[in-house]
């Protein structure tokens, strides 16, 4: 379990950070309810809610049937009537049945009711590849939802951000889609401050400062981008890496400030390239900062194929590697 590193923080991995934050939310606010497939008796497939049902009871930790539309639909009703539901979609690949509940209902409640109702709902879901999950356990879904006003989307990469942003998502009066990259669950460890704190939704974080190229990324790829940027630093090339953290609202200011400094922008994400988050960032920068650009904007993203393959070579073909990221960065710095 967690190693105590100092009196003010604990070293955790991402999955422990999710568990600890959910536990505190359940402990501190009786309105908090967790519902989803296998979240109760099984304690979630990653053991995130292990023993929660024993401590908080089955009225607050609810095992649902395999029916994603119902999970979100029930949670929307709970949220509108004063509870603080945290719904789990077991894998992001299974979120599609609940699309109507998320997009058609949750995101529009405030508007539809003329502000009379809000929908303080968090939908957590593990996403992303690199775990040989193939067709139904490796998809990225953010681009399907980021077009929708009324919905916030968060994708933290580090354990301290997991806690701060999950707390902010729970506190938020409107629906938040909380994306957890499953490959980072146990891979990424870091210091997590003790006690309750939040990190504002919509604020990016410059994880590495640099002067010659701006890289925007999130999720697993953010870590690989940082690794690639460190390689370039050894070659004397200076790359700034921005952890987007929140996909919507998007932190335009952080991106524009950085691009105005470096004059070059590379967006790296695992989700498919066409119509992805990188497309929106590119368009935004082209609109706002064209005359600061000293090279074409580039996107290093997943190819436009239906899924990662199960076979290792096919998965590797789909995913970018730190080496590929370093090559793309080097080419842009030297452009």
């Amino acid at each position, binding site marked *: 379990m967690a190693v105590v590193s100092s009196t003010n923080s604990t070293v955790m991995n991402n999955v422990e950070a999710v568990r600890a934050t959910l536990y505190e939310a359940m402990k501190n606010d009786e309105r908090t309810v967790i519902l989803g497939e296998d979240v109760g008796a099984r304690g979630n497939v990653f053991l995130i809610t292990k023993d929660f049902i024993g401590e908080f009871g089955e009225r607050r930790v609810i095992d649902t049937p395999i029916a994603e539309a119902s999970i979100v639909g029930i949670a929307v009703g709970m949220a509108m009537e004063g509870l603080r539901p945290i719904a789990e979609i077991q894998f992001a690949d299974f979120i599609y049945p609940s699309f109507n509940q998320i997009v058609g209902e949750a995101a529009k409640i405030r508007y539809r009711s003329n502000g009379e109702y809000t929908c303080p709902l968090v939908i957590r879901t593990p996403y992303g590849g690199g775990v040989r999950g193939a067709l139904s356990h490796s998809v990225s879904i953010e681009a399907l939802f980021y077009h929708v006003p009324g919905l916030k989307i968060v994708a933290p990469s580090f354990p301290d951000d997991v806690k701060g942003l999950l707390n902010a998502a729970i506190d938020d009066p409107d629906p938040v889609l909380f994306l957890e990259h499953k490959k980072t669950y146990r891979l990424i460890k870091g210091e997590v401050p003790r006690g309750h704190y939040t990190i504002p939704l919509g604020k990016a*974080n*410059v994880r590495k400062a640099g002067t010659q190229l701006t890289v925007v990324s999130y999720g697993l790829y953010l870590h690989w981008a940082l690794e690639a940027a460190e390689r370039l630093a050894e070659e004397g090339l200076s790359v700034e890496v921005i952890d987007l953290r929140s996909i919507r609202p998007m*932190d335009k200011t952080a991106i524009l*400030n950085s691009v105005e400094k470096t004059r070059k922008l590379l967006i790296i994400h695992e989700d498919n390239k066409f119509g992805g988050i990188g497309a929106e960032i590119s368009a935004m920068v082209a609109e*706002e900062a064209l005359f600061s*650009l*000293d090279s074409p904007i580039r996107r290093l993203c997943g190819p436009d194929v239906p899924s990662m393959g199960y076979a290792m070579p096919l998965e590797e073909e789909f995913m970018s590697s730190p080496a590929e990221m370093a090559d793309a960065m080097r080419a842009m710095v030297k*452009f």
Partner: protein
Amino acid sequence: MATTITMPQLGETVTEGTVAQWLKSVGDSVDKYEDFVEVSTDKVNAGVPSPVTGTIREFLVKEGETVATGTPIAVIDEVGAATLAAPAASTAPAAATAAAPAGPAPQAAQSSPAASSPNGSPAPAAAAVSELELEGALRGASPAVRRLAREHRIDIRAIKGSGSNGRVTADDVLAAARTGAPAPATPAAAAAIPPGTRTSTYAQPIPGTTVPLVQARKIIAERMVESKHTAPHAWSMVQIDVTNVWKWRAREKERFERETGFKLTLLPFFIRAVVESLAAFPLMNARFVPASAGGQPSIYVSDEVNIGIAIGLPANLVVPVVRGADKLSIKGLAIKGGDLIDKARKNKLGVDDLAGGTFTVNNNGANGSWASAPIINGGQAGIVTMETVVKTVVVRDDDSLAIRSIMNCCLSLDHRVVDGYVASGFLAELKRRLEAMGPQGDL
């Protein structure tokens, strides 16, 4: 000056070119824009114009040889760059009646803008050709390079590029601006047309043209005249030791920028000191109210402290206002000020951002100004400047020497509202407060 000519990129996907034929020999003179080599690629055959006027010193590639784009192919000894535009324009009419100037070979004359004019009115053709060729030279120049080249009046064709395939990068342009590279030659057409009939813009003025005033410029002109004519300006300056506040800023800078996304400059510290000094001298935060019909003139002492920040833009001057500046911490001032400066640069200031100023701060030192005499913003009692921060050896009270960061601070005041007694008291207060800030504390 020797200019190295590289194999141009004649198309976006073209990576190499073949020297089909040298149109000149070593030792020949060549005019700027004159074709001196014919290059063939798998897509096009094209004459390549010389970027400079001069003498061919050396060919680095043989006819028939294929090299990568960006590879040096020839060296031309350039003659004085600054004299290019004028001779081209003045020889043009002569060319129609007399022989063309010595030098150009027949095929070169075809593409030499000045010499090719057949009818003695060369200007429009010359302009069209040179702009076309300029566009050709700019191809592959990024938006940032184009903007910086315009802002610094740099001819990017005269810069050696350090990017891939010899591309001129934004940093190359900035480096050229620092070392004083050649400015773009004025289009020959400009000189040939009577002065005053052509117009240009304030941001990109062209010699010999008229710049019509946009509305904002008209208002600036009117307000400046009005203020200078109605408010009798007096002037004073103090030297402020900003060593400690500078250290404080340096300590907080990185964290502040990371947390807020705004730069932490000296400005918010200065505004904080100004605001506190205005509280001690409320007459500096006042305005002269002329006599209305039948009434008496008066002075209105404002109960709000709204600080205008003068921001110079290429085509404009704007003074957005930090309202309620006395209620903001240094951090608050930095965020609000940073936001207004951002908006100003992006031309997004609203009416509310510009209204209600009671006193103005002008950060004048960025370009090295050491003292200045600003004009008061109408309806205020004063304007104060921050000049450049200079490290200076100073003699301290105990006769020891020290290296300190010193900033001049200049005040223009409306002498109808305040006299030297109040003004110098205000400046002394400002100096005392700013010198008491740092080297650490809470923002």
